[in-house]
C-alpha cells in the first residue's frame, strides 16, 4: 500500500503548479477529523500566515491582522485541495494555474508599482 510521509515528504517542500512554476512552499497541511473514520487529508496551505502560526499562535494572528490591512485575501492563507496534488517527492506538483491564485498577488503588485516602472526590467 502506497504511503505518504507527510512531514518528511510534503511539508516544507517546494510547491509548483501544472506548468512547473514555483508557487511557494507547503507551509501547512490540514486534515479533517471525522467520527469513527480516519482523518481525511483536506488541504495544503501556503502563505506567511501559516508559517507564522508554526512559531506561535500570537505571531500567526499578528500576520493575519497585517495581511488583512492589505486586502481580505491576504489575511487568509491560500489553500489547495488535496485532490489537486498530482505528485510529490522532489516538488509537490498541483493541478492548478498559479496565475489564477492569490499566491502571485505580491509579485504582480511589485511589478505594477515598482519593478515594472524601472527601465530594463524586461
Amino acid at each position: 500500500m502506497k504511503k505518504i510521509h507527510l512531514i518528511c515528504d510534503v511539508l516544507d517542500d517546494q510547491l509548483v503548479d501544472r506548468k512547473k512554476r514555483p508557487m511557494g512552499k507547503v507551509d501547512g497541511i490540514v486534515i479533517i477529523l471525522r467520527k469513527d473514520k480516519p482523518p481525511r487529508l483536506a488541504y495544503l496551505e501556503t502563505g506567511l500566515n501559516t508559517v507564522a502560526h508554526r512559531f506561535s499562535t500570537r505571531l500567526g494572528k499578528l500576520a493575519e491582522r497585517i495581511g488583512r490591512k492589505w486586502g481580505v485575501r491576504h489575511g487568509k492563507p491560500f489553500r489547495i485541495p488535496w485532490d489537486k496534488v498530482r505528485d510529490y517527492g522532489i516538488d509537490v506538483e498541483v493541478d492548478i494555474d498559479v496565475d489564477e491564485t492569490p499566491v502571485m498577488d505580491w509579485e504582480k503588485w511589485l511589478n505594477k508599482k515598482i519593478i515594472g516602472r524601472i527601465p530594463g526590467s524586461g
Partner: protein
Amino acid sequence: MANREVHIERLLGHKVFDAKGKRVGRLEEVIAVRQDNEWVVQEYWIGGGALLHRLSVRGVARALLGFFGAKENAGFKVSWDKLDLSHPKRLRLNCAHHELEKLTEKDKTTRRRKHQGRSK
C-alpha cells in the same frame, strides 16, 4: 471532535502522553494512505526514534548512544484511532505505553527519494 480541522504542522514536536498521563514522546511524523478513493491518516510516529528516522541520522545516533552506553529510544507508531487530537497542545493516547508498537527498519523504506529529476 467530528468534522474539525486540524493543522498537522502545528502538532509537530508536541508532547504525547498515554492514557495514564505518562509521557511517551513527541509527535514527529504522520503517515497517510489511500483508502476508498481518498487519502487518510493511517498512523502517527512518536518518540526519539521517530525523530531520528525523520532526520535520517539513526545510524549515527545509534553509534553515538552506544559509545556512551545509552539506549536508543526506538520510537512508536500509533494508529489514527489511538491518538486524541482534541487538545493539540496536550496530545493524548487512549491506550497505555506498553501497548504501543515499535518502529522498525522496514518502516523507514516507505519514504520517497528526493533525487530523481526536477522541475526547474
